[in-house]
Structures are given as structure tokens and as C-alpha cells.
């Protein structure tokens, strides 16, 4: 069989607020590219067929499955992974709520769930429990039975609303 050198493209994009670039073949999955080329190992690969949701990242602010995108598709885009959520000292309110409510065990699905929640709470700041569960239906978690996750998301929505009201009253 003939030896074929696969052409590689330089993908330039913004990752977690920084300009980055890396090499990708046209067939390279975004998740593989983020993990192995840029070191964003917080992106987890659970099924590679778009069902489990573990590899969810934000591309230009929207939650996407990075196993169903090619690396070359993020050329010039803004990509955010779980590594972007906390600053050095403090985790985000969502991350803290996950810890408080025991919303993770092995933590493998967690990164993708956090990214979906970030996107979702932007669009729907006051969700009901049914809505939260519906949103989470795009993610599989085998450890928690989802209870802690649902509670954490509702808790953060409530906290943010209270915070907002307090700010308005000042």
C-alpha cells in the first residue's frame, strides 16, 4: 500500500482567552486536538459518537461536542474548556456548588457537564428542576444518579438571582 503523507494544517484559534495554534490533519477530531496538541486534558473523551457529552466545550460561546467537530473547524474561533472556569485562587460559583452538593464522584463526565451548564445558565438564568434535568439529558453520568448535579445547578441559579437582586437594591 502506498505511503501517503497526510497534509497538516496550522489551526489558529483562541483557547481560554489566549491565542494558540497547533497542527491538525483534516480528519483530526477537535477533542483529540485540544487534548494532545494543546494539553487541555480537562476535555474528556467518553464515546466519540456524540452521546455521552463528556467532551463538551464552548466554541464561540456555544456548547458543542468536541468529538463531533474537526479541529480545522475552530480556525479563528474562541474555544473555552473546563480549565477556563476557575481563577488561580477561586473556583467559579458553579464549581463550588458542584463540590458542595457532591455532584461528582469520578469526575470524568463533570467537565462536559460544567461547560453545558455555563452555556445554559447564560441563556436560562432561572430554570425549573424539569428544565435542568432536560438540559442534562445530553450528558451521561454513571456515578451520581444526577441528584447532586441538579441541586448544584438550581442552587447556583438561585444564588445568582439573589446576588442580582441585592446588587439592584444597593
Amino acid at each position, binding site marked *: 500500500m502506498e505511503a501517503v503523507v497526510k497534509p497538516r494544517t496550522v489551526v489558529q484559534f483562541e483557547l481560554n482567552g489566549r491565542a494558540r495554534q497547533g497542527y491538525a490533519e483534516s480528519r483530526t477530531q477537535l477533542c483529540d486536538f485540544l487534548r494532545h496538541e494543546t494539553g487541555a486534558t480537562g476535555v*474528556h473523551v467518553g464515546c466519540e459518537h456524540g452521546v455521552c457529552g463528556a467532551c463538551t466545550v464552548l466554541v464561540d460561546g456555544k456548547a458543542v461536542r468536541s468529538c463531533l467537530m474537526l479541529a480545522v473547524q475552530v480556525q479563528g474561533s474562541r474555544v473555552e474548556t473546563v480549565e477556563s472556569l476557575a481563577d488561580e485562587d477561586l473556583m467559579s460559583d458553579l464549581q463550588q456548588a458542584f463540590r458542595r452538593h*457532591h455532584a*461528582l464522584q*469520578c469526575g470524568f463526565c463533570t467537565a462536559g457537564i460544567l461547560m453545558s451548564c455555563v452555556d445554559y445558565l447564560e441563556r436560562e438564568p432561572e430554570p425549573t428542576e424539569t428544565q435542568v434535568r432536560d438540559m442534562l439529558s445530553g450528558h451521561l453520568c454513571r456515578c451520581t*444518579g444526577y441528584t447532586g448535579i441538579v441541586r448544584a445547578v438550581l442552587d447556583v441559579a438561585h444564588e445568582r438571582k439573589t446576588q442580582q437582586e441585592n446588587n439592584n437594591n444597593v
Partner: protein
Amino acid sequence: MTIYQSLAVEDRPNRIGARTERVEDEALLRGLGRYGDDVATAPGTLHATVVRSPHAHARILSLNTEKALAMQGVHGVLTGADVARWTAPFAVGVRQPMEHWCVAIDKVRYAGEPVCVVIADNRYLAEDAADAIEVEYETLPVSVDPETAIEDTAPVLHEAVGSNVVNERHFRYGEPEQAFEQAPFRVSLKVKYPRSACTPMECYVVLAHYQSASGTYDVLSNFQGPYALHSVMARALKVSGNCLRLRTPPDSGGSFGIKQGVFPYIVMMGLASRKVGAPVKWVEDRLEHLQAASSATNRVTEIEAAVEPDGRVTALRYDQIDDCGAYLRAPEPATFYRMHGNLTGAYGIRHLLVRNRVVLTNKTPTGLNRGFGGPQVYFALERLMQRIAVELDLDPLEVIRRNLIPAGVFPYQAPAGALLDSGDYPAAVGQAVVDGGLAELLRRRDDARAEGRLYGIGYAAVVEPSISNMGYITAAMTPEERRKAGPKNGAVSTATITVGPLGDVSVHVSSTPQGQGHQTVVAQVVAEVLGVAFASIRVNVELDTQKDAWSIASGNYSSRFAGAVAGTVYRAAVAIRDRMALIAAGQLGVQAEAVRFADGKVFAEGANPMPFHRLAGAAHWAPATLPEHEGGGLRETAFWSPPELTAPGDDDRINSSLCYGFIFDFCGLEIDRVTGEIRLDRYVTMHDAGRLLNPALVDGQVRGAFAQGFGAALMEEFAYGSDGSFLSGTLADYLIPTAPEVIEPVILHMETPSPFTPLGAKGAGEGNNMSTPVCIANAVADALGCDDIRLPLTPSRVRGLIGIDEPEAPEHLKQSAEAPAIPGGSTLQASGSVSIPASPEQVFDSLLDPAVLAVIIPGCHQLELEGENSYCADVTIGVGLIRARFQARVKLSDLEPPHSLCLSGSGNSPMGSAQGRARIRLSSLEDGGTRLDYQYDAAVGGKIAAVGGRMLQGASRVIIGQIFSRLSQQVGGVAPQAGLWLRLKAWLNALISKGDES
């Protein structure tokens, strides 16, 4: 033994019994976990992909790696020949002449069995090359159903054994025959428990580096234990234990028992590294995982009870068949024997008869899966208790209550040998009934039924074993065989605590957690004993067999952490504290017994408190000041094995576990009469797991196990076709519960400390995997009044139980009522017709012309004449996300020119196999054209069937359509007219000519 007496928890944050938040979480939430695939690799690390059998049972005639090896970036291919040269078959727990190697050598026995391993620069290139591997198989008849596989006439997997039944044992405890004879009633039931798996979100990972200078295999893998398998691996690799250095990464993405099954791949990748002389990494993908990793053992049970008129059971009889798949992979047949001692469950039944048969079938080998053995036993036992109530017209809860082991008799020895350590079962049931609101559920059932709705209530009482006796598996052998082999028993736990020169405390445990939060609980225990700040303690849970304390019982299984590992940590901490107390006594001028540790300080009455770090420092910086016999340095490794875990006796009694928790569940559910959908109204689960070390984490375990039990009850099944094809190959086919489906269970606790563990704790992680499937099944049985309940209770299965007949399929989708001509995993049948603007003679001749055939078969790269009207073809076919290159044989037969012929073909590809046959009839049309009618049968197996099942029907239609469209173009230069157009045209013609419609 003294049991640790816990103080009031609210006063003691982060100590034993507190709902402490997890120390693991911050790294995981920040995306900084270090799972197997995140660990740094050495420069030059290569990547492996496994080529797997598309057939469930076949002889390997040839394996050609030439084309693959010639491809760019490919470094080598590990084959069965290498494996036969370098390794020995894996050891098994029963004495039978059967061989299991990490790569198939001459025969494959399940779809997905590894046939060779391709090693290349990266995974993408390895997978490209895997497609170029050519394997020729001779398929063999299969045994798929366990009840058929035990028959004498069934195809045998391991010829040297001569039968698929590889182990059979009979057990008798008490006087069961007499009890059955005297019993006024006998109630019996036959149940089948399906295959499913708890499917961790992270798949297997192995990173192997063979060190040729020392002959050592250095492997990192997310293996979960039991480390008894380390010996199995070393033996297979034909090296001493210290030449297999096995390490685990800091984090693991779940396991639930399943990552026990990675061990053959540890051996395989060690050999792959040896083959190419470089480090090799393999990350299993989800499709491989579902098809070929591991699963719970499916079981067929006939169970019978001897029953008194009041529902009391005096004797039980089990006849169990475990289907362990194609190979008896260690530690199987442990699914039977993990539960053996407590086969009488929570009941005071004294007479027991058991027949256990292990059968091998052409399916993936089974192994540990959360609840291990429990769901299978309790599905039979608790369904039987429900049947007793129905048949004797008693309240099912009363039947359970009358049979429970009474309070005050613990430790209680069950007839098969379990020494039930502690509990108060009647009190737990009583508390659950009140606190869980059973009365309200019973009212809801009355109301629902009054309105004609289908509502049921189910119960399950379960004994949850934890901390397995490493000797239980020898119960698969006869007492004579055991005497020859030597006794096996116990379960050694280890814990190491180091206090550093700055007073810092580090702990190591060999429990290889997979997400349960062991680091948190270990730190709680140590903080309590040494009186130091919880946050200052570092707990390392990576295991390195070359440097750490471990033993064969190490690992993360049988819910052994809380009882055994945390207990051993406690003992190690006490040992360190006692040494430090002696040192302090000298410095403070008091007796060692007077020294107390708290708040980071060391106290004694009448002396000034000393900072903990100062005392610790003395052991490192000034060893000369230490008391006599104190060697300096501060490290203690505790080993602990409970004496209650004795080897099975000649009477075949086995205390299979150290601890036995108690669970009582009940639930109410409603069934939609139209859709068959089950809606859980409430699920109550009461647990007595002894002393709770961190109730928040215990509740997390209960919720997780409940969700998995819920999935097993309603959604999950590893399905196989009649040819052994695996049919649940994607997460779109194997359905796992998501957030909208799972409800929040009502969790209740009672704490009866175990007298046998250092902290009084028992395991709690697996209970609901055992109790929930049968509790839900009992509720469905109650709602529908039926006895034959099969899991999973999918809406279509429930509709069958309700008695709803599915409406007939629309005419054009009807499958022929006859059995398909070709048996297979996914069988397809369809028919259709096209009209072609050429005469039947022209069409017929074209079909016999190889040049035409090569053009009309979609994706045909090459077609060569092999014999008269038979061809060899190279064809690429795509179904859904799968695209595969087939080596196919195409044959034309039954030629009746120009009226009919038969076109048949079969092909193999790395993605699976396919065979099909199309019957073609040609008839003249009035316009001089030809009407071509076809009818085809096709069967597809292997990965294509596993992952493309739902798309096959549509894909086959498209492909067949393309064939005739191209034929039409070839013959007449235009596209054919579809069936519908043909009918329309005929109708229009009839209308125009005002003739009769035909």
C-alpha cells in the same frame, strides 16, 4: 475487638462520621484530574489499536499483515504467534483443558475477540493500518443461549473440554429434601437475569513499556484490582511478580468492577511494547468497550421454596446456570461464589439445596460488575417471595417479615456459611415502613386502581455482602480438589502512614479508588487519630507494585474500603500515634497513656502542650534523644486480614464476605396503559451499613447504585443476535439512564456497627445494584398481576405483559413471515421492483457481464472472475458512521435466461461480515422494457451490526437501489423508473386508454 466509639458528629467537622466535602473535587472540577490518558508519556511512545473478530465463532485460517506493515508510520503487528511464543494461557479457577490467551491463536470464540494488535506512530495511523490486515476465517456454528449451550448437541467452544459446561457443583445444607417433603406448599419460579454492565465513562487505558535489559514489563493502567490478578498476569507473561511493575494513575473515570477486565490488555500491551521495542499506549474506544470489555453474568435460575401456610419458608432450592461468555476469565466463576454463603438472603431459612453450572457461550467473557452476583441471586429470591405471597394470598410485606432473621441472634451463621455480623432487620423494615411513608403509597395504589390505572408496589429485602473472602472462589472446587490445592482465605488490607520532618502527614492506601472519595475518608480517619488538621493530610492512592505495600486483596471491589481499608488506616494511625506518645512521654515527663493528640498539639495533664510538628521533628532531626527501641523516622505500614474469613470447610460452608449490611427497599410505580412506560412514583431505600464514616459519600454511593439498578431494571441490556453478533454497540443502542428519567430515592439509614471491622463500618456501595432491579420488577408484577417478569422492562416488553398486541406493520414495511434464509445478528429482508428501458434478454446478459457487474456494485474497486459466474470483489460499503472495505465473493446461480437468476454474495471486512442473496425476476413490459422484481435476504454481523443496526434497513435499501439504478444506466442509458412511478404510469395509461385497471 474494641469498636471505635464516635463522638457527636456536629462538634467534630472533618472527623469520622462527618459529612466532609471531598478533597478530590477541586482538581477534578478544575479539569486538572490526571486520568490514564492524561499521564505524560515517554518520548517515542507508539499507539496501538486492536483488530477484532467480526465472527462469534470461527477458525482463523490465515492472518496477513503484509499490507499493514508496509504502511507509513506502522511499527509492527502483534499476532497470536507472538503471544503463543512469549506467554502462557491465563490461569483459571476451575480445572479444565481450555486456553485463554490475550490474542486469539487459532480460533475466535466471541465477536470482538482480539486477533492482532497494530502499533503505529499514532492512533489514526494504527486504525488505518488495521483496515489493511487480512484475516481469513472459517465460521463455525455458535452457542449463544445458555440453556441451549448446555445441551449435548450444542456446538462446543473448547473442544478439549468436550462440553460447554465447564464447572458443576452441588451443595446441600441442613435437611432440604425432608423439608420439601413435609412442606404443605411448594412455590417455584424460573427467572432469567440479562447481561448488562455499569459502563464507566472512562474506558480502559494501558501504557506499557517493556524493559528489555531487565526483562521487566513496566505498565501503567487504570486497573482496579483485585491484585490477585497481578499473579495471573505475571504467570501469563512467564515472569516473576517483581518483573511486572504495575502502576495506576492518580485518577480513574469510574469502574464499578468493569476495569478488572482490563487485565488481559495489560499483558497484550506489554507484549506489543516488546514487539516494537518502544513504549506503547492503548486507549480503548467506546465501541470496543461495549462489545468486548466485560459485563455482568447473565443467569438462568430455577428456584423453589418449601412453604408453610403462613408464608414461612423452611427450605430453598436453587438451580442456577451462569453464562460466563467464551472464556472463564479470572476471577470467574466468582459471580456464583461471591454470594454463596448468603444465598438464603435476609431470611432465617435453615435448609438449602444448590446446583451451580457454569456454561461458556460465544459471547464476551464476563467479570466483576457492581453488585457482583447480587442482582442475579436477589432477582430470583425476592421475585420468589413475591410469588409466595400471591400464591398463598398473603401480603408480600408480611411474607418478608415472617421470614426475616430475628434481632438478637447476631453474629448469625447462615446455612451456606455466611457469618452475618450484625443487624436488626425487623427494626430496619419497621422504620422504613414508617419513615418512607408506605401507608401513603398503599392509599395511592387504592386510588389509582379505583380509577382503573395500573399501579403497583414492590418490596425487596437484601443482605449486602462486603469485603470478600479471597478463598470463596475455591468453593467452585470439590473439598478433595481444595485439599490438593491448599487453603485460600482471608483478605489482606494495607495502609501506610508517614509523618515527615516538618510534621506533615502522608498516607498511602492500596484501594485504587475509581471516584468514591477514598482520599477524603482516609484523611478524616487520620485527622481524628493524630489530632492534626484535616487539610494538612495528603493521601496518595496511586499504586505501584514495585514500591508500595499491597497484597492480593488490594484494589477496589467488594465494597471493601470502609470496613477493611479505612479500618486498616485507623490501625496504622494508632500505631504511629502510640510511637509518638512514647516519644512525647519522655519529653513531657509523663506516662505514654496520658498523652493526648488534638488541634495539632500533643497534651498531657500537668505539662505544657507541644506542637505536633515539633514532636514529629524529634524523630527525624534528633533520633539520639528518642526512647530505647525507637528507631527514628516515622512510618507505619499496617496489614490487616480479618480472622473470620476462613477457608471453605469440607462441609462446603463458606463465609464468603466479612460484613453483611442490610437493605430494605420498597417502591410505588404506575404503568401507562397505552405506551407501557413505567413512572416511578416513589422509591424508598433503607440501609444499615454499620457505622457511616462520611454519610454524604454513602448517600452518593446509594444514589449512584440506585441509578444503575434503575437502568438495569428498565433500559439496559447487552443484546446478541442468533449468530452471536453483538447488537448493543453504541450508547445510542445501549441506553443508560439520563437525568430526566432517574428520580431521587428516599434514603434512610440505621447504624448497627460491625463487630468485625476496626471502625464498625461495612460496605455500602453495591446494595442498590442488588435490590433495585428486583424491587421494581416486583412492583411491575404487582401492577400487572403477572409472574414472568424479564428485565429490562422496556415499554415494548411491558406492553407485551399488559397484553397489547402491536399493530400490524404498514404493507411496504412488512417482513416475510418465513424465517430468514440466512441466520444472523441483523437480518434484513425486502423486495421491490424497477423498470428498465431494455429488453429482458439485454438485462439478463448485462448481469452476466463482469464489466457491468463491476460498475453497478456500489463502491466496487475491483472484480475478478474466479470461476464460472463467480467473482472475487473488493468493495467499500458504508452504513451510518461505519465505512468498511469488504473482500467479497459474488456468485450468479439458478440461471433461467432471460427470466430469473439468483445473485448471492458474502464478504468480510475489519468492521464485520455480511452475506446476502437476491432472487431476481425479469418480465417484459408493453413498451419493450423490462420489469425487474427482486427479493433479498441479508445478514450482517460484527461491528457493522453492533453499531449500525438501526441504519441497516435504510442503508441496504439505498445500496440495492443504487445497484439497479446503475444497471439501468448501463443497459439503457437512463435511470430506472421506481416502483411507485411504474404503478402511477400504469394507472395513467389505464385511465387514458379507458381500459381496465390491471
